[in-house]
């Protein structure tokens, strides 16, 4: 009988949900009772809404338990591992029977995420056992030439997954055709979009896939140096990348004359970013690696001609590289059989916001947005009404309910005014104010503007001021038109993508939710009951029973009242956090 294996998901979100405690508990039980099972670690399988996750693999197959805490861990050991009697109610994913959460995986196709949640990311042998480094072996065994590799990537239809959507193979060809003594291959892991964590999960869950993709890219373009530019906010990703890089060096996948290919030398190092969103732009990223302020510069010259240290350079995103080994190992058709005419393959999305099943999904291009939100995502939290989904972060836009039947590919998403972006998908319901969402993104881009272009630096600030005024009930007639005019100017007069796309969240919300702007400006009302300045919480004396729950829950002690007597809210102290509203069991608190 094979030994039972217990695997704990230790990605960043799992750890935040308490997975380390669960792991330690399992280890303590195993050691104390001298139990014969193997305890292992993996990363995120994407079901963030059920973290912490524990998978038990025995002779019957695999079962993944969700929402595990220390008590449940003990139960799982006693009943499943010792008693051979799985606790079906706790199981969230298995092939053995249907679970309520199974729909989360229906329609997903995992190519970039093929190993995430299935291997120990700190163990190179587990990557190798799932066809890891086979693409590189194929290149050696079949003596594939750089042109062949580049052509395969072009044929696969892979486009840049960081947001730009430029064909990866073409980018490689430009870098390949520029001759130089030194070239750089760079991985953009500066995932700065708020609400996006695809790259983090990939780096934490399968760092070798990204490294193998970079090695293949380096061979194709003739690069001798590799750099992974990673956000410093992702300490776990950096740690696992460092482990993976040193393993790759030990195993001869990095170094001199790699895999016996004469003259193929490559080393990859990590550069930690220092917290600047604009460094996701490739010229700014290279400036940052050179130790300068991360300010974008004019193109041409493109990085493929004169990039890092003025040498030809190729920059791709994490997810793009992770797809490469799969394509090379399985052929272009294995990838381009998925997707639509101009958008091939699959895309990873981080599904968050007011959604029941928040997590990481990978679907073929062209999947209907409705399916992603309602089938995979399970619909809206608390069965509220869907209002919009924000795609593409601060450069993207909001797609409203009447467009929910679009197919998610580059063309259809762009037609709505949003962008595909890197894959953050934030779902909003009837309680989300769209003017406030626009203000939120403008606040972000305004802070993150590097300050080089006047319109981006000052224009976004003026736009933010107008939006802030509107959300505070001080909007004036003509504000919407002023926003539209400024938006056009910022878009036309900015050098890089940050400024050119900064107005998108404002323009799409005006386009689809103009009535919300008008309600704020004319009626001084926030239809979503979200803007604090336009909101008051009051206690209905008829319904209040004086149970004191609201007064206890209030973090600022704004609620007064004796036990069993009607309570009141002191409006001067109230911070409008809504804790009283959500905790009142008698429906006695109203917000207006």
């Amino acid at each position, binding site marked *: 009988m094979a030994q039972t294996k217990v695997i704990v998901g230790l990605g960043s979100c799992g750890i935040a949900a308490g997975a380390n405690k669960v792991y330690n508990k399992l280890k303590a039980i195993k050691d104390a009772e001298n139990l014969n099972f193997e305890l292992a670690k993996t990363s995120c399988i994407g079901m*963030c809404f059920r973290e912490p996750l524990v998978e038990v693999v025995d002779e019957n197959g695999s079962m993944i338990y969700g929402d595990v805490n220390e008590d449940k861990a003990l139960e799982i050991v006693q009943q499943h591992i010792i008693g051979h009697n799985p606790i079906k109610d706790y199981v969230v994913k298995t092939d053995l029977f249907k679970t309520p959460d199974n729909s989360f995986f229906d329609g997903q196709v995992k190519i970039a995420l093929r190993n995430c949640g299935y291997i120990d990311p700190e163990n190179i042998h587990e990557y190798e056992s799932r066809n890891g480094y086979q693409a590189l072996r194929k290149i050696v065994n079949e003596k594939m030439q750089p042109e062949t590799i580049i052509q395969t990537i072009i044929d696969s239809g892979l486009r840049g997954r960081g947001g730009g959507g430029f064909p990866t193979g073409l980018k490689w060809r430009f870098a390949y055709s520029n001759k130089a003594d030194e070239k750089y291959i760079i991985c953009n892991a500066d995932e700065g979009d708020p609400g996006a964590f695809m790259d983090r999960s990939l780096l934490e869950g399968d760092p070798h896939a990204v490294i193998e993709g970079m090695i293949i890219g380096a061979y194709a373009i003739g690069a001798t140096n590799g750099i992974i530019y990673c956000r410093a906010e992702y300490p776990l990703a950096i740690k696992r990348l460092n482990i993976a890089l040193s393993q790759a060096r030990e195993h001869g996948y990095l170094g001199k004359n790699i895999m016996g290919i004469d003259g193929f030398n490559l080393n990859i190092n990590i*550069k930690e970013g*220092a917290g600047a969103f604009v460094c996701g732009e490739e010229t700014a990223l290279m400036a940052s690696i050179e130790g300068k302020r991360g300010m974008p510069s004019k193109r041409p010259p493109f990085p493929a001609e004169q990039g890092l240290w003025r040498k030809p350079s190729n920059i791709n995103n994490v997810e793009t590289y992770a797809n490469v080994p799969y394509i090379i190992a399985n052929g272009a058709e294995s990838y381009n059989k998925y997707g639509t005419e101009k958008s091939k393959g699959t895309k990873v999305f*981080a599904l*968050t916001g*007011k959604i029941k099943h*928040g997590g990481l999904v990978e679907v073929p291009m062209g999947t209907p947005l409705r399916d992603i939100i309602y089938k995979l995502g399970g619909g809206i939290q608390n069965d509220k009404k869907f209002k919009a989904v924000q795609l593409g972060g601060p450069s993207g836009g909001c797609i409203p309910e009447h467009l929910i039947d679009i197919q998610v590919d580059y063309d259809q998403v762009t037609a709505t005014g949003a962008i595909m972006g890197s894959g953050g998908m*934030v779902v909003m319901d009837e309680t989300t104010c769209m003017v406030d969402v626009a203000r939120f993104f403008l606040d972000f881009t305004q802070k993150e503007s590097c300050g080089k272009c006047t319109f981006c630096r000052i224009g976004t600030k003026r736009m933010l001021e107008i939006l802030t005024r509107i959300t505070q009930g001080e909007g004036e007639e003509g504000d919407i038109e002023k926003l539209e005019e400024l938006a056009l100017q910022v878009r036309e007069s900015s050098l890089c993508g940050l400024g050119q796309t900064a107005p998108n969240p404002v323009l799409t919300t005006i386009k689809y939710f103009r009535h919300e702007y008008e309600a704020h400006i004319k009626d001084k009302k926030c239809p979503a009951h979200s803007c604090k300045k336009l909101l008051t919480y009051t206690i209905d004396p008829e319904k209040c029973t004086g149970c004191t729950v609201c007064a206890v829950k209030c973090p600022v002690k704004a609620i007064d009242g004796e036990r069993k007597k009607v309570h009141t809210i002191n409006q001067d102290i109230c911070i409008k956090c809504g804790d009283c509203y*959500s905790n009142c069991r008698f429906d006695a608190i109203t917000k207006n």
Partner: protein
Amino acid sequence: MRVQRLLTETENKKIADNVDLKLIEPLIEKYKGKKGNLIPLLQGVQSIYGYIPRSAFELLSAKTGLKLSDMYGVATFYAQFRLSPVGKHIVKVCHGTACHVQGADAISTAIKDALGVSDGETTPDKLFTLETVACLGCCSLAPVMMIDEESYGKLTGSSAVKIIKEIKIKEKENK
């Protein structure tokens, strides 16, 4: 654009005595003369002191030949670098999109109220520094905050304040 400023001479004098510049000498040896070393040097200094002291800028410049103006330009450009000392615990409240939609503003307001400081400030007892960050990447647990290395998810105003209070109590017990 973010605007930060260096401590003035008088502000700096009050804390300058605590800075042991010997600690950064190995760092300087490691990166001296390497191209693109400015950011790793500043990151290294900050990981030792929690911020970049004025005197460290001067020492780096003298030992490596990097210009003070370049270093100051970089240090003020990137959000990661701090130019004044921080508290023992750093409270980072996430204001990413998912957290914003789930009510991160209320979490920040409640914590500001509990600590009595604004964003970027340190409490007078030097226990807490409050920061707002763009995204911690745990979006499915929104709203989220991170204190030191530990993340806390699915917060409400009252649960966030409770977590802070528990740390305060522990600190008192340790004294």
